[in-house]
C-alpha cells in the first residue's frame, strides 16, 4: 500500500460532516492536543458526545516522525495513526476530517455554532481550540517557486517524499529542530545537503550555547554542510521559470538546489480566537487551568499561551511551548477543567529530537540559568549540560545520555536537586547524587 493510501483512508462513518448533530464538546484541531483532550476526557468519565474536527484529509496522526523515521522510510504511515477507527466509534467520538472552521458564533454560556468553509456547521455545548501553529513563511524573491517546501504536516511530508527522488542537491533553511532533523534524514537518503542558518548558532534558544556548539561540531563531523550567519537573498528558478534551481546568498554565492526546505519556526493559529474576542498574545491566552479569557473556551497545545507551570518560575511569567509533552499535559489540565475539576499542570516540560545518531533529550527549561555543568564522555559519545539557578538544577540538555536525562527529569519532578559540584564527573551516575535539600550556595529566598 502506498503511503498516501494508508494515511488517507477511512471511509464512513468517520468521514463526512455531522452538521445536524449537536455535540457536547467540539474540539477544533485533531492533532496531538485535540486527540489527547478527547482521550483524557473519556478516561475521566466525561460522557457527552465529542466531535474531534480537523482540517486535514487524514485520520488524526502523530507529527514528530514526519521529519525523521517517516521521511527516511523506516516506518509506515499507518504507524503514525493515533487510534484505530474502532476506538473512536466505541468511545462516542466523531472524527471529522477536512473541515476548516472559519467562524464561530458563541454565547456566554459557552455553547454556540462553528461554521466551516464548506458551508457545514457544527453546533456545540462547549468549545475547545487545539488549533496548533503553522509554518512561518519565508518572504523572499522566488519563495513561491515549485519545489520550495515546508514540513509541518502529513501533506508536506508526503509531497517532500514524492519529490525527493528528483533532487540531488537540497538546501535547508533554518537551523532549528525541523531543519536539523530533516537534514539528517535527507543526508541518510544520499542527498547533498546544505543547511543555512541566519543566526550565529543552531537551535535558537531551545538549547544552551554549549549544546548548540556540540550539535554544530557533531553534524559537521558527519559531513553536513552547515553555514551560520548566512542570509538568503532569493531563490533562482530553473529554465522553465517555475521551479527552484538554486539559492542565492547575500554574498552572491548561488547554491544549486532542486529542493529547498524551509523550517524557520511557526506562528500560533489565533484567527478563531481573535474572531471570538478572546485575549491573544503570542498564542491564545489561557489561565493555569487552560481556560481562555471568556471563562468557558479551553485552548491547548502549540496555540496556547499559559502561565509558566515550572516550579520556581517568576510570578506572572507566561510561556508558549511547542512540544508533544506540553500538548499532552495541557490537554489533561483542560480535561479536568471541562469535567468541573481544577488540576495544576503536572510534570516537567521535556522535549526530544533525533538527528542522525544523536538523540537529544531536554528536561526542564533552561531560561534564567546562572551556572552550567558539562558532562562529556567522547569515548561513549555522551554529552550533557546541566543548568542551575541559585544552585538548584532547573534543566538539562542530554545527547545520547538517557540516564542523565531521566535522573534530571525525575529530580525536577520531585523537587530534588543534583549538586553541581558532584555532577561534573561524567562517570558519576546523577541518580546516586540526587539530594533532598538545596545546596549550600543557594541564595536565601527573595535575595
Amino acid at each position: 500500500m502506498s503511503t498516501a493510501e494508508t494515511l488517507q483512508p477511512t471511509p464512513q462513518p468517520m468521514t463526512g460532516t455531522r452538521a445536524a448533530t449537536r455535540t457536547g464538546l467540539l474540539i477544533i484541531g485533531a492533532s496531538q492536543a485535540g486527540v489527547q483532550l478527547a482521550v483524557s476526557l473519556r478516561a475521566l468519565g466525561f460522557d457527552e458526545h465529542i466531535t474531534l474536527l480537523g482540517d486535514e484529509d487524514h485520520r488524526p496522526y502523530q507529527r514528530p516522525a514526519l521529519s525523521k523515521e517517516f521521511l527516511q522510510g523506516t516506518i509506515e504511515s499507518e504507524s503514525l495513526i493515533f487510534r484505530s477507527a474502532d476506538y473512536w466509534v466505541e468511545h462516542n467520538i466523531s472524527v471529522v476530517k477536512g473541515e476548516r472552521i472559519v467562524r464561530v458564533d458563541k454565547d456566554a454560556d459557552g455553547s454556540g455554532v462553528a461554521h466551516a468553509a464548506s458551508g457545514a456547521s457544527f453546533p456545540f455545548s462547549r468549545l475547545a481550540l487545539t488549533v496548533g501553529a503553522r509554518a512561518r513563511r519565508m518572504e523572499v524573491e522566488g519563495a513561491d517557486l515549485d519545489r520550495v517546501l515546508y514540513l509541518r504536516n502529513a501533506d508536506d511530508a508526503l509531497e517532500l517524499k514524492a519529490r525527493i527522488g528528483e533532487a540531488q542537491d537540497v538546501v535547508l533553511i533554518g537551523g532549528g529542530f525541523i531543519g536539523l532533523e530533516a537534514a539528517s534524514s535527507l543526508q541518510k537518503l544520499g542527498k547533498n545537503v546544505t543547511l543555512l542558518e541566519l543566526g550565529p548558532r543552531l537551535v535558537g534558544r531551545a538549547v544552551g550555547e554549549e549544546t548548540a556548539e556540540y550539535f554544530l561540531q557533531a553534524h559537521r563531523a558527519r559531513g553536513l554542510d552547515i553555514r551560520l550567519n548566512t542570509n538568503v537573498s532569493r531563490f533562482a528558478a530553473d529554465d522553465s521559470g517555475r521551479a527552484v534551481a538554486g539559492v542565492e546568498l547575500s554574498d552572491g554565492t548561488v547554491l544549486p538546489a532542486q529542493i529547498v526546505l524551509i523550517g524557520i519556526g511557526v506562528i500560533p493559529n489565533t484567527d478563531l480566537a481573535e474572531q471570538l474576542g478572546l485575549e491573544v498574545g503570542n498564542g491564545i491566552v489561557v489561565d493555569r487551568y487552560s481556560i481562555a479569557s471568556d471563562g468557558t473556551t479551553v485552548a491547548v497545545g502549540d496555540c496556547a499561551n499559559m502561565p509558566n507551570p515550572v516550579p520556581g518560575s517568576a510570578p506572572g511569567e507566561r510561556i508558549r511551548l511547542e512540544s508533544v509533552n506540553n500538548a499532552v499535559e495541557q490537554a489533561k489540565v483542560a480535561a479536568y477543567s471541562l469535567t468541573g475539576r481544577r488540576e495544576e499542570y503536572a510534570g516537567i516540560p521535556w522535549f526530544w529530537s533525533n538527528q542522525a545518531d544523536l538523540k537529544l533529550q531536554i528536561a526542564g527549561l533552561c531560561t534564567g540559568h546562572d551556572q552550567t555543568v558539562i558532562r562529556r564522555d567522547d569515548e561513549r559519545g555522551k554529552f550533557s549540560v546541566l543548568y542551575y539557578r541559585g544552585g538548584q538544577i532547573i534543566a538539562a540538555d542530554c545527547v545520547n545520555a538517557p540516564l542523565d536525562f531521566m535522573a534530571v527529569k525525575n529530580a525536577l519532578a520531585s523537587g530534588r536537586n543534583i549538586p553541581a559540584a558532584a555532577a561534573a564527573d561524567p562517570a558519576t551516575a546523577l541518580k546516586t547524587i540526587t539530594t533532598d535539600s538545596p545546596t549550600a550556595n543557594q541564595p536565601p529566598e527573595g535575595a
Partner: protein
Amino acid sequence: MPTVHFTDADGTVREIDGNVGDSVMETAVRNGVPGIVAECGGSLSCATCHVFVREDCFEQLPPMSDMEDEMLYGTAIDRQDNSRLSCQLKLDGDDVFVTTPSTQV
C-alpha cells in the same frame, strides 16, 4: 494474527489482536489500552511504555539495545528483570503476554 495479552496492575486482562511488524506499544495505543502512555510515539525517548514480559515470551522478543537498557532505568515504576519498553517489541506472529505497571509517569 498475533494477540497481545495486556494485564494491568489490578489484574484486568485485555486481549488485542495485533499485526505482524507492529510493536506491542502501537498495538496498545491504537486500541486505547490504559497503562501504556508512549508520549514519544515509539522513538525510544520517553520510557512511558514500560511493560513486564511473561517469562516464556522472552525468547521470541528482539534483544535489548543499550539505549533501551538505559531508558529503562528511568521508568516511573522501577524496572525488574523482565522489564522492556514495549515500543521495541515487534510482533512476529506469536502471542505476547505482558503486564503494565501501575503508572507510567
